[in-house]
């Protein structure tokens, strides 16, 4: 479900676009014709955000563990 367009996107840009899409959908500004496309895009943004979050979490975890391990 990865989209090539999201490859170089950062979290905040992805999150912003996601917000815009969800807000557009909520406001009824997206018709049936675009809906599937938009949902697809949103889903891929969500995937991206989640992946970024997970990777950040892991990175931080690793860094801090190294730090704590080094301080013993």
């Amino acid at each position, binding site marked *: 479900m990865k989209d090539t367009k999201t490859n170089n996107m950062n979290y905040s840009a992805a999150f912003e676009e996601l917000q815009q899409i969800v807000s557009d959908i909520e406001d009824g500004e997206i018709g049936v014709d675009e809906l599937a496309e938009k949902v697809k895009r949103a889903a891929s943004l*969500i995937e991206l955000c989640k992946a970024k979050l997970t990777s950040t979490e892991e990175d931080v975890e690793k860094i801090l563990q190294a*730090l704590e391990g080094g301080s013993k």
Partner: protein
Amino acid sequence: MQPERTTYTLLELTRSIQKTFADRYVSAYWIRAEMNKLNHYSHSGHCFPELVEKQHGKVVAQMRSTLWRDDYIRANEQFIETLGQPLKDGIKILFLARVGFDPIYGLSLRIMDIDPAYTLGDIEREKQETILQLKREGLYEQNKSLALPLLPKRLAIISVETSKGLADFLEIIDKNPWGYRFFYMLFPSLLQGDKAVDTITLQLNRIRKVKNHFDAVAIIRGGGDDIGLSCFNNYRLAKAIANFPIPVLSGIGHSTNETVTELIAHYNAITPTKLAEYLIQAFHNFSVPVMEAQEALLSIPSEILKKEKERLITISNMIGRTVKASFIREKQTLQNQSFRMKREVFHIVSRSRYEVNQYSTTLDVRSRTIITSNHQILLQTNKAISDYCRRQLVNTNEKLTNMEIQVRHLDPVNVLKRGYSITMQNGKAIRDHHMVKTGDTLQTKLLNGTIQSLVQSSSNDSF
């Protein structure tokens, strides 16, 4: 002619005078007078005091008197006992006397007794006058106001060389067990009687010359008899002492009231011994603090240094402790930063994840809603089309039916069926009676067939 004279012999006269005195002055009288001269004859032991009374410095009465040897001894003893001094010239006395006249010795007063209390009062008055005068001149406190050196160790002693008082005094200051060294010089002087004033004054003048060599003058007189102390009440002597440039100390042993000299002296000890002790005490007062200072010096600096060492050790230990505490604190702070960061990072991540999930949920719900609502709308549209169509068809059908009925009503066949007929003239339907004249031929069309008829008349009768 000369009258008969009565003549008397001298004896007769003197006897008569004697008798008259004896009759008139029967008892002894207490008389106040000034004893100008005592006129004591040491050989016989009798005295012939010269008595006067003065007013404003002038002699207003004068009389000789006798004081027999026994009376003199008794009165003198009483005097010494009461006043501390013997009968002498120039004192005021109250005496008991008989007035007598002797044919040979003439008028005389025989002093039988002298009241020393009266004279004492007089001396006291003189003493008070001296004090008053000194006070008036501002000299009373003069000598006292001088500063006695801390160590009154150089003494000009006014005393009698052989006096026991002096010996007592020197015994103490020379042989004190503390090794205090005094320097003193004797300025010998009489210390009693009338000549004392002059000799003391003389020696004071001598001392004045060398006053820089001395810390104080000590007037020392041994105890024992109190005779002749009135010289110390003398104004001149008192003034000389009061004015003296260095402190005058007195150690005059006696049992009576303090003399003026003693009152104005810088310091008065009641005996020479006491004066010596006073001086020793002054040395003590100097020596004790010095010895205490020495002791303090021997103990306190080492205490100070000991305390200082302890202080230094304490602060030295504190540095180690403080530094270690500061390391612990610093490490804790670092740890805290790390903890805070960790906590916050995971907080951010989890919050972000929550937000993303929220959007995911919203996306889900909303997109399904859109689809569902579109389904709904399509259904409604479907129904609307059906409804509207069927209604329109029904309406059209109704309209057509109405039209059919209308047409049926308009068909003339249907009128003729009900018995109506159409009257025509030349093929035209007659609607007005004016259209026909009598005699016209009309055709009447019936449902079945036609009738030919002639018009007889027409009117406007109507239905």
